[in-house]
């Protein structure tokens, strides 16, 4: 664990430095665009984690592996946090740009709906008492959700194009200068490592919680 945390810092610091200092100021948005170095990787993570959860969901439904159940429910809060981070940074970006704290652009709206999907998973899992049943429920929910994410995303983009909202997605341009791309990728990797670190911690906690009636946990506890 400690070396993973070190790896995280190792990736995070150059990523931040590269993004915040080295990369040239964008010709249109000046300095304030730099928030995308957090916003974009966070958004990528929010999607990635949901896909991981859906994958766990399939494993749970087909093979009923306990490990998959633990990974799924531990990932959910992390994914929700990344989604929230993406939304918050997106909002922070919007303020100096368009003077409002929120814009109904395609990406942000999709992220908002994704947040609801995460909250649904967390809420459903919390509401069902028998945790093995709860895991199967959220497994189904995660699978249904992941199928819907592209549909929702496409629908929202289409909706957005109709109403001509301002776009936050500058990176649909065909070429990105590598001095921006590199810190971006570094940040993405850093977030990935963070996910693994946080996941391990949560999984440990979840495993202890589930197996608390088993002997090996009680032995650990010194009983």
């Amino acid at each position, binding site marked *: 664990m400690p070396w993973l945390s070190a790896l995280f810092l190792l990736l995070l610091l150059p990523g931040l430095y590269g993004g915040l200092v080295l990369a040239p100021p964008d010709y249109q948005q000046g300095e304030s665009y730099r928030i995308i170095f957090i916003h974009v990787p966070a958004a990528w993570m929010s999607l990635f984690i949901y896909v991981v959860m859906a994958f766990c969901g399939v494993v749970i439904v087909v093979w009923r592996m306990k490990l998959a159940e633990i990974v799924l429910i531990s990932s959910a809060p992390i994914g929700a946090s990344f989604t929230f981070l993406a939304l918050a940074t997106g909002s922070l970006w919007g303020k100096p740009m368009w003077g409002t704290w929120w814009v109904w652009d395609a990406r942000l709206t999709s992220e908002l709906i994704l947040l609801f999907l995460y909250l649904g998973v967390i809420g459903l899992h919390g509401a069902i008492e028998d945790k093995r049943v709860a895991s199967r*429920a959220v497994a189904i929910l995660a699978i249904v959700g992941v199928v*819907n994410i592209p549909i929702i995303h496409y629908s929202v983009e289409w909706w957005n194009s109709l109403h001509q909202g301002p776009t936050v997605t500058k990176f649909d341009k065909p070429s990105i200068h590598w001095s921006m791309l590199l810190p971006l990728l570094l940040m993405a990797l850093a977030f990935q490592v963070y996910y693994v670190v946080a996941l391990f911690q949560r999984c440990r906690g979840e495993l202890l919680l589930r197996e608390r009636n088993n002997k090996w946990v009680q032995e650990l506890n010194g009983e």
Partner: protein
Amino acid sequence: MKRLSLSQAFIYLLRRDLTLAVRNRAEFANPILFFVLVITLFPLAIGAVPELLARIAPGIIWVAALLAAMLSLDSIFRSDFDDGSLEQLLMSAHPMPVLVLAKVCAHWLVTGVPLLLISPVLAEMLGMPAAAQGTLFLTILIGTPILSLVGAIGVALTVGLPKGGIILSLLVLPLYVPVLIFASSAIEAAAGGLDVSAQIYMLLAFLFVSISLSPLATAAALRMSMS
């Protein structure tokens, strides 16, 4: 004697649910009343400005339809869950997804069709141009079955929970968003005289995907809720 064929069982269950709905009339009137009430609230809240109302009418009607659909969803499985009929259905020799489809079909006939029939009246009250009303009807015709089908998944996941209704909204509304987007945009486009085939095709696609996939998810969720 031989057991019934699958289609016979389907029709049988469909008729049973329709019979139950007829005998429980009060319970099934609620969603429709809610639909009308919600729509009535908007002019009260925004002011009876005709151009404004006409402009947002598609959105109002569809949001109200979503909310009314969600209100009605609970009735699909709750009664069967409470009296043990659901477990008997799960133990039948017929495949559960087909039985689920029969129940959802009944649900749509009882909750979606009334919505469909009253929507022209409400559209007129909100001042929606005649050109758009046909599209409104079409979107509700295609859209409400999707609401029932997809909503059934959510109900199946939460039927065993005491306060299931609240979580149900959280689960189901994100899934309804695509239908909402395409339906209301279709009506708006029609009001402007534009072509709506793209939106209608998308809705039809959603419908076909829902009919084929959602009973499977619902059946799996029901089985899991019962354990």
